[in-house]
């Protein structure tokens, strides 16, 4: 049963999630989803008109349903409600269970419960398989985001690391929520694996460039640093699974070949087989 495109999304992750569950019903996505990425969902979203979260756009589109995130567009939210549109919002997940609940919830709103359920199963089994492989290795890892922000306890990235069977050294060192690390701390902490969310597009930025500091290259960690496309980690879609597989591949590859550990492995540059 094909319904007209009547769902407007004003959140980048919602764009992607609806893109997986009910692509035909997406009438508008955020402009951010039109920015070049190598997500598999990108070509699909690129073909759907973009919005900037303005009430005028809502009135123009007259969507049956507007879906946003918990913290974005507070001004739009109140306006949309005032004009009587159907507003839904997904909470920001702090762990994987919350993410799965979001999928189920979205599935219910869109009438795509079975697809949502399949998605949850897909993510669960995918991550579960990886956890089985990696957990025995006892790897202390950490995700170092732009400008040195790292995830501590009570944080989705922390939950993600644990779901992969990795222990989060930042949380172990007492970081709560989000914290910032310096080069010096990284050298003292000596994580087995550093995961750097980076951008494949648009060249360098100081915010991530500092992870190329020569001092870090002189630290003989168990595995070389791995750079993963930041876009893959930002929303709880199959891209998360894809990133996890890359991290697993990276670990297993260097587990067998530890001598190669001096070089940073650029996962993101090799991937092109995954376009829908």
């Amino acid at each position, binding site marked *: 049963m094909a319904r007209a495109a009547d769902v407007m999304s004003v959140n980048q992750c919602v764009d992607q999630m609806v893109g997986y569950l009910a692509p035909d019903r997406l009438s508008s996505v955020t402009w951010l989803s039109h*920015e*070049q990425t190598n997500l598999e969902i990108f070509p699909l979203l690129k073909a759907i008109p973009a919005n900037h979260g303005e009430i005028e756009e809502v009135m123009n589109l007259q969507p049956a349903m507007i879906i946003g995130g918990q913290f974005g567009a507070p001004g739009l939210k109140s306006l949309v409600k005032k004009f009587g549109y159907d507003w839904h919002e997904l909470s920001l997940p702090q762990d994987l269970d919350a993410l799965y609940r979001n999928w189920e919830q979205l599935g219910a709103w869109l009438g795509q419960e079975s697809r949502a359920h399949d998605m949850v199963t897909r993510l669960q089994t995918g991550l579960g398989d990886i956890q089985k492989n990696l957990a025995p290795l006892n790897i202390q890892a950490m995700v170092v985001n*732009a*400008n*040195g922000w790292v995830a501590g306890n009570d944080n989705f990235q922390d939950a993600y690391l644990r779901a992969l069977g990795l222990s989060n050294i930042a949380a172990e060192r007492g970081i709560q929520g989000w*914290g*910032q*690390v*310096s*080069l*010096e*701390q990284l*050298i*003292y902490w*000596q994580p087995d694996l550093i995961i750097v969310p980076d*951008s494949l*597009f*648009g*060249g*360098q*930025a*100081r*915010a*991530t460039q*500092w992870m190329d*500091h*020569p*001092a870090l290259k*002189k*630290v003989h960690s168990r595995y070389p640093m791995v750079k993963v496309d*930041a*876009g893959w980690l930002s929303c709880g879609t199959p891209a998360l699974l894809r990133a996890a597989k890359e991290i697993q591949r990276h670990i297993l590859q260097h587990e067998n070949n530890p001598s190669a550990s001096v070089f940073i492995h650029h996962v993101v540059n090799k991937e092109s087989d995954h376009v829908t």
Partner: protein
Amino acid sequence: MSRSLLLTTLTMGLLAVMAVSLMTGRGAGLTWPGWDWQSQLILWEIRLPRTLLAAICGAVLGMAGAVLQGWLRNPLADPGVLGISSMSALGAVMAMYFGLFTVSWMVPLAGILGAIAGFWILITLIGKESGILLIVLAGAALNAFSSAMTALMLNLAPNPFAMQDMLFWLMGSFEHRSLEHLWLIALPVLIGMTLLYRLSPALDVMALGEDTAHSLGISGRRVLWSVGLGTALAVGACVSVAGVISFAGLVVPHLLRPLTQWQPRLLVLPSALAGALLLVCADVLVRMLPPGQELRIGVVTALLGGPFFLWLLRHVRRAEVEL
């Protein structure tokens, strides 16, 4: 205070704060570095480049401030106030975020070109004889314009993390710098500072005015080129690796002027040393705060320099410079 005493004091002070800087970790406070490989790596690969870079950039800003003030006979001149630094940041940003970053020296080169453009706009279009306040006003306009353009460029940059670099470019930082950065700017800084330093004898003569200086054998055009190129090379290179750090070049010459008999010539070298001292100190201060506190070195220098600048403005307006 005799000159050798002044220079010795500044050098000793600089060496002392550099030693403190080598012992200061971000958020870790002052600690004696151990002999384990981690401490040694941090000392030589992280703190040393950072300290040297802060010293070099401070020396450049102090010297450029002293030379610009002497040359323009304007106590309010400084690469930051005149907008040369922010133009240089704009140049570097344009190169770095828009695909010109294929070779590492492109960013300093673009920073230098930006500084040349800023200098050219200021001096050639506004004119250096247009009065103390007018040229400062022009500098303020140039500053506002190029900072806004830098923000715009970072907004438009294809890299999603570019926006997070805004603070770095506008407020400066020596965080995460390595010896690579040091080598990258060594040559332009060396040439620039040589050009500026070689001008110092002429600066005293410039105090007598353009025409008299000409009659004493100083070619205004040659001095213009030296000041322009020297400032652009040294400041442009520094800004491209450390962002804009304002007011350092303004404050330092002023504090030293009474100690150098108000002779612009004698001010150049001490200003370089004191500029280095100031920035290394400021950078130590920045690191004393726990991580997560986003205090930038430019904020420290602005906290010091901003009120000072206003105070100076008041004095200049009243009775030129008996400061």
